[in-house]
């Protein structure tokens, strides 16, 4: 084959980026080796710090590498260098700048890079105060960095197998298409594939970085636990481990909750939590680390539960790796609404997972005998016993979630032995399945937190304990009664959960009170976090159990047995401008508006008074339903009306697609201009740069002119610019006989059309019309509306829980070391 020299490619930038990839990989390896030697020398008791210095230099090299990759990747995305596969696949010209950073982590490579980047940032902070813990802890972290760097190494091993995915690989080496045989293919490659439309939501700018910060944080409690085992120093690791563990719990928890908010605001699955495998995969490690945090506090105060703590914290990190395997290897396949492709990283992901499982197992087995274990019987009024049991129940609950989530993996394993795939599928009623297990578990956990919070370490004055428990019980009974009446909670298991959560709320509020009064707020972290958790549960249970689909089809007409009965009718048919009764509202679909690629539908709500028959305007919602062939049809973004005590949540489930209908002129605007004037239209900066006789006539008029008719024509030259996209339009106006002809000038890429409409010979004003050629307003939409009562309690709970965590981090940073 003839070698083609391609034009205008920015190969140097890509090579520069790839240099950083290799630099980060080698730096991580070198740091791993150096810190290992340093740890060995520390154990021997030598004072020579040369390996430590080498380790730091290697880490700095690695850090430069990672930051370099990040910078180059941002640079090529910002500059729309579509010759790079990553840029082409994840971005496009039309993408607003605020979502440019979302392109960064949409792909596998970028998200591994983000994870790696946070490891670097957190490590740098950790090293400042780590002292003797630096070397043994950094061994573990650098091992993870080697693994992460390998995911983006892009070293070809054989024809089929490449070791990692190079983020700077070229589009033409990734795809085969005829255009890549021409040297100037970039001339034809104007735009990228674009960012997944679901990710174009402001929560998506903040949720992934927070979640990955949480992912990255989990390695610190784990690495410190492993370092404690390696060094045999089981005391002093607690001081750094405690704030890092609370930080992990807080930030990972915040990341998970933001994911819930995003799901509620941008996805149309009708709620904030769907027990989707992807959500579960992150929730489970969080739960285990929460358990580990509580046993760590027990260990700090009583010297008990060290082995459990180390196992929990290790398991937390290993489960993060397992969740990475689950969500990125493609193994979930049919069971998740999130679709993930394998991208051939399966082997590397499994290596990542099993190398850390092996490391943990080996170190634990070797050190098991040396771990101090308590042989005393715990008093039943001691705080540590209840904290310990609660964290065990938490772990069992986590086990239940991960076991069900792993059904596709179990199915694959069964298939391995039997050949082919097994026939095991996730439960038929997924949400019911999880609730059946998780509601009893959470009731038990919450009640134990009440007892633990009221008791003291080792032994509690039982009279005082009973008194506090009784007062809190009375308050909780009152709160439960309010909930039952106010929010109509009526099923037994929900009433018990409401009571248990209220109990925890009351107990922790009682404990919080003195801290607020005597200005000892920094001790309030635990109470605050538990209050937040209790509110979260109350909000979740009311809004979920009392949610109501209000878009019932209540036409009263039945079309025969085959058609739906009223129970099933969750969607309402709304023809344009035809009011329909929906619950207590009269809803009308009054029109649409298109802001490409989004398509908003205006739905007006009037409150309908049955007695008087009058209606009063309430609010207008604009759910978005963009037709996105790439994503497989309609992408629905909900629109929600928020009241203090409830949300009205709506999304379109289907629209009249206007198939076959011609596009019509919409959003037409006229501008009076002269040469040199500028104006704005739909985000385009337009400038009139030329006005004069037309350089060329349309064929018909050309022929007429050649035939001797009196024809004159004028032309405007207008540049239109938005972001990186730039166009030149040359609309003409033709005077033929007594007629004025205004042929449209189209810019098909943007659905734009321009007309040179009028020349005012007296004033010299020129009129130009700009519009968009779009499908006409759909004649109907189909909509679903759900009412979520008291969902604000959930959000308030989330915020308080996160605040509580950070108060606790602040307090624990000031703790003294245990002796």
């Amino acid at each position, binding site marked *: 084959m003839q070698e083609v020299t391609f034009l205008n490619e920015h190969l140097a930038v890509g090579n520069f980026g790839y240099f950083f990839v290799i630099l980060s990989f080698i730096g991580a390896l070198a740091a791993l080796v150096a810190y290992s030697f340093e740890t060995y020398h520390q154990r021997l008791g030598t004072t020579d710090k040369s390996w430590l210095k080498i380790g730091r230099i290697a880490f700095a090299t690695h850090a430069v590498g990672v930051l370099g990759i990040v910078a180059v990747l941002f640079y090529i995305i910002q500059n729309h260098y*579509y010759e790079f596969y990553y840029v*082409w696949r994840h971005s496009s010209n039309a993408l607003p700048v605020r979502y440019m950073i979302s392109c960064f982590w949409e792909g596998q490579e970028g998200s591994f890079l983000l994870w790696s980047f946070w490891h670097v940032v957190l490590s740098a902070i950790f090293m400042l105060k780590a002292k003797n813990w630096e070397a043994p802890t950094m061994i573990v972290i650098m091992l993870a960095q080697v693994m992460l760097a390998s995911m983006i190494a892009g070293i070809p091993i054989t024809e089929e197998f490449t070791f990692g995915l190079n983020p700077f690989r070229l589009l033409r080496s990734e*795809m085969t*298409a005829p*255009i890549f045989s021409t040297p100037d293919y970039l001339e*034809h*490659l*104007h*735009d*990228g*594939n674009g960012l997944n439309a679901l990710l174009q939501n402001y929560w998506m700018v903040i949720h992934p970085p927070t979640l990955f910060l949480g992912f990255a944080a989990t390695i610190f409690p784990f690495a410190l636990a492993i370092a404690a085992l390696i060094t045999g120093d089981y005391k002093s690791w607690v001081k750094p481990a405690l704030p890092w563990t609370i930080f992990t719990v807080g930030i990972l928890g915040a990341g998970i909750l933001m994911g819930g908010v995003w799901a509620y605001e941008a996805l149309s699955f009708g709620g904030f939590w769907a027990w989707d495998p992807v959500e579960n995969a992150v929730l489970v490690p969080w739960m285990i680390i929460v358990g580990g945090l509580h046993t760590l506090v027990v260990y700090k105060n009583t010297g008990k539960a060290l082995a459990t703590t180390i196992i929990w914290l290790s398991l937390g990190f290993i489960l993060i790796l397992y969740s990475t395997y689950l969500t990125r290897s493609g193994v979930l396949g*049919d069971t998740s*609404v999130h679709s993930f492709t394998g991208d051939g990283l399966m082997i590397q992901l499994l290596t990542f997972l099993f190398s850390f499982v092996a490391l943990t197992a080996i170190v634990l087995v070797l050190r098991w005998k040396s771990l101090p274990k*308590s*042989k*005393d*019987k*715990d008093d039943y009024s001691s705080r540590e*016993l209840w904290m310990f049991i609660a964290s*065990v129940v938490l772990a*069992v609950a986590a*086990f*239940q979630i991960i*076991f*069900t989530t792993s*059904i596709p993996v179990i199915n694959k394993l069964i298939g391995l032995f039997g050949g082919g*795939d097994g*026939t*095991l*599928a*996730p*439960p*038929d009623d997924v949400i019911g*399945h999880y609730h059946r*297990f998780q509601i009893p578990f959470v009731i038990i956990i919450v009640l134990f937190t009440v007892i633990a919070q009221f008791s003291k370490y080792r032994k509690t004055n039982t009279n005082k304990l009973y008194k506090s428990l009784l007062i809190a019980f009375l308050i909780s009974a009152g709160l439960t009664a309010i909930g039952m009446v106010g929010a109509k909670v009526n099923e037994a298991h929900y009433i018990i959960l409401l009571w248990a959560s209220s109990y925890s709320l009351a107990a922790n509020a009682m404990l919080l009170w003195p801290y607020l009064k005597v200005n000892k707020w920094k001790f309030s972290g635990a109470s605050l976090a538990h209050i937040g958790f209790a509110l979260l549960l109350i909000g979740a249970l009311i809004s979920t159990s009392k949610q109501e689909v209000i878009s019932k*089809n209540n036409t009263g007409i039945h*079309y025969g047995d*085959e*058609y*739906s009965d009223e129970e*099933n*009718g*969750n*969607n309402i*048919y709304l*023809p344009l401008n035809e009011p329909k009764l929906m619950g207590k509202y009269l809803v009308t679909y009054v029109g649409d508006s298109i802001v490409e690629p989004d398509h908003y539908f205006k739905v007006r709500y009037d409150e309908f008074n049955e007695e008087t028959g009058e209606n009063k305007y309430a609010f207008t919602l604009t759910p978005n339903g963009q037709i996105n*062939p*790439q*994503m*497989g*049809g*309609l*992408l*629905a973004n909900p629109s929600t009306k928020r009241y203090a005590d409830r949300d009205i949540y709506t999304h379109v*489930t*289907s629209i009249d697609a206007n198939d076959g209908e011609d596009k019509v002129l919409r959003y037409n605007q006229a501008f009076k201009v002269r040469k040199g004037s500028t104006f704005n239209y739909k985000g385009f900066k337009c400038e009139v740069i030329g006005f004069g006789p037309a350089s060329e006539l349309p064929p018909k008029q050309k022929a007429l002119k050649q035939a001797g008719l009196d024809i004159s024509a004028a032309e405007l030259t207008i540049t239109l610019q938005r972001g990186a996209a730039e166009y030149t339009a040359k609309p003409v106006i033709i005077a033929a006989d007594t007629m004025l002809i205004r042929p449209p000038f189209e810019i098909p*890429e943007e659905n734009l059309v321009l007309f040179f409409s009028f020349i005012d010979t007296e004033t010299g004003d020129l009129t130009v019309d700009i519009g968009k050629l779009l499908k006409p307003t759909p004649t*109907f939409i*189909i909509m*679903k509306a759900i009412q979520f009562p008291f969902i604000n309690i959930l959000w308030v709970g989330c915020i308080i829980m996160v605040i509580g965590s950070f108060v606790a981090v602040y307090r624990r940073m000031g703790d003294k070391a245990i002796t």
Partner: protein
Amino acid sequence: MKQGGIIAIIVVAVAVSIIITTLADAGTYKTFSDAKDILNKPINVVGHVNKSKSINYDPAKDPNFMSFYLTDTVGYEMKVVYKDAKPADFDMATKLVLKGHATSDSTFEAKEILTKCPSKYKEGEMAAADK
């Protein structure tokens, strides 16, 4: 902790019961030929829409009813009734996973439809890029 042993026994007992109940609660992938023998039992069926037969969805009449014919992985066909709005990506889907049950020898009522669309970034994509 001396109570550790008791706790451990309880934990193991609970964990084992979780495994057993979960496996009992787990769904199964079946074909239509199995489905008609176990009427009204919830199962999962994988297959593709028979595009040569009618896909019935008339939202003006009833937005909560659609019916179509699905051919399962072994080639057996059944009429599927779905009492909800037509999934947005239904027409694009190459593969469907149905959750539901057979109501007769020839009809399957789907409670949930998972649509599987062809991977977004395969053939045909370059044509779109090369505008």
